[in-house]
């Protein structure tokens, strides 16, 4: 079932076209990462889904309802990119307030505080919280009332690596209960195993929207192979494998997916000359660059 349907949506502020002809669908339990640099239109797109910003053209439906309608809002959990809760309130008071607005029991709010790891600090004023702790308050309020759609704008900014890991555990649990999750991010490496689909935006356009493995196949970015030899044998090895010598004692090679196995066989055939091998598939960062700036690469 389609939880979020975005059809050919555009948004213009006068001459500035923030979002142009974007179509994107999210089904139940799907985790989609929205990538793009600052000003690519990610936040504007989310704001339109929330009903905070009117569309210039196109249509958006949240569970078949127009964005911003009371029912649509009741079904959405939203974590804004930068939110500063009132410093005079404690984390618990702030979350209880949001629970009341969503018609959720305060017990649920307390459970969520525990889920995001804030129980020890919940009776302290938010003004004393670190950035990561404030982000956790934001995440907890987005999870209130089992949303059908979670919109998380830069959710991991300000979180340390362990907290990021915990954050994605929570996202996984959320998706397992059927919530569609749309999250935007700059931190690409952590998304690799944690999302079902990657959508890449640049200058208001949606340039790619597929699973990571499909994006890899379509991009045909080479796999990087690095073979470590010795200073004496590196030149000889580079000649035999067809690569280039780097760092004095290593050989760097590039190969497409289909040629990978035969190349590795060739390398093992060299026997004792090989001291070590590194095989690196195209990273998400390279993919992102490939899709977001295709024209410059063509030149």
């Amino acid at each position, binding site marked *: 079932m389609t939880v979020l349907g975005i059809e050919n949506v555009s948004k213009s502020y006068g001459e500035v076209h923030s979002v142009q002809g974007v179509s994107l669908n999210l089904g139940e339990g799907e985790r989609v990462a929205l990538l793009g640099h600052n000003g690519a239109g990610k936040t504007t797109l989310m704001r339109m889904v929330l*009903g905070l910003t009117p569309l210039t053209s196109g249509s958006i439906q949240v569970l078949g309802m127009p964005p911003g309608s009371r029912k649509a809002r009741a079904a959405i959990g939203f974590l804004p990119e930068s939110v500063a809760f009132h410093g*005079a309130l404690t984390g618990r008071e702030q979350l209880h307030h949001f629970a009341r607005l969503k018609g959720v029991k305060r017990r649920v709010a307390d459970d969520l505080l525990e889920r995001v790891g804030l129980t020890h600090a919940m009776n302290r004023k938010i003004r004393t919280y670190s950035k990561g702790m404030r982000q956790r308050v934001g995440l907890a309020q987005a999870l209130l009332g089992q949303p059908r759609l979670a919109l998380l704008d830069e959710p991991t900014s300000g979180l340390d690596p362990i907290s990021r890991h915990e954050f994605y555990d929570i996202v996984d649990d959320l998706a397992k209960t059927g919530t569609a999750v749309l999250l935007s991010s700059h931190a690409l490496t952590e998304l690799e195993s944690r999302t079902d689909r990657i959508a890449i935006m640049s200058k208001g356009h949606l340039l790619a929207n597929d699973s990571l493995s499909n994006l890899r196949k379509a991009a045909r970015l080479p796999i990087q192979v690095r073979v470590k030899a010795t200073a004496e044998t590196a030149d000889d090895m580079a000649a035999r494998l067809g690569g280039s010598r780097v760092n004095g004692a290593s050989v760097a090679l590039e190969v497409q997916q289909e040629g990978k196995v035969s190349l590795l066989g060739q390398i093992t055939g060299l026997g004792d000359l090989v001291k070590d091998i590194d095989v690196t598939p195209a990273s998400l960062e390279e993919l992102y660059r490939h899709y977001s700036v295709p024209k410059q690469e063509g030149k």
Partner: protein
Amino acid sequence: MSSIAIARIELLIARRNMWVFTSLILMGLFSSVLTLAGGAPTGTLGVDPLLIATTSITTLSVYLIPLIGLLLSFDAIAGEAERGTLALSLTYPLSRGEILLGKFLAHLVVLGFAVAVGLALTAGLTIWKYGSADLNYLPLLKLFATSLALGAAFLGIGYTISALAKQTGVASGIVIIVWLICVVLYDLGLLGALVADGGGTFTKTIFPWLLVANPADAFRLINMPTDTVSTLATGLGAAGQASGFAPQLASLLLWPIFALGLAWGAFRRIEP
């Protein structure tokens, strides 16, 4: 229901931010001082001591209540817009009208509480000094009700400014200017016009209406007894009473509705 949740959190914030305490101290202190000092000149005149006290307190409230109302409200929308909590609140299933109503209820409670404590102190001190016999409590109740109306009007004006300015820094500057205009400059302007007119048609026909159009002046007129006391208290009083009770009451009742309507209109147009 959502309005109650908003009112609840706003009351909590007002308490933490010492707004409740500050307005309480302001109203309590001034009411006590005016009650104790205001009774001194009456002595054996035989005027109701409570009447003297309420007259002094009215004069002061004309300045203080709009100020407290504006100070409570100027941050209400601009502050949330700046912190980013406004956008978040608006993604929850509640309307902007409910948010505004909730904030208004909370701020009116803070203001009403401060005024009530001030007037209770006045009543208590008067009884302590003169005994409870022959006291007329009606002016006190009238002062309380009209104080709420005056406060509500300036809360609405404050929300409007807050919504239009969108930045707390700008909003705080504007409310001080608006306060100065409403409680000081407006009267000075009218006084100047009166002097220039020298008792002509302006004084008789337009002036009473202009005076009552300002909620602060309507508040002053409605709470001032029509005898000589008012003439002593304010130079504008005597001429102002020409408009009568009904327009004064209408001004005090319509201003809160008008100002809150304006605030709602301005708030609705905000794209957080």
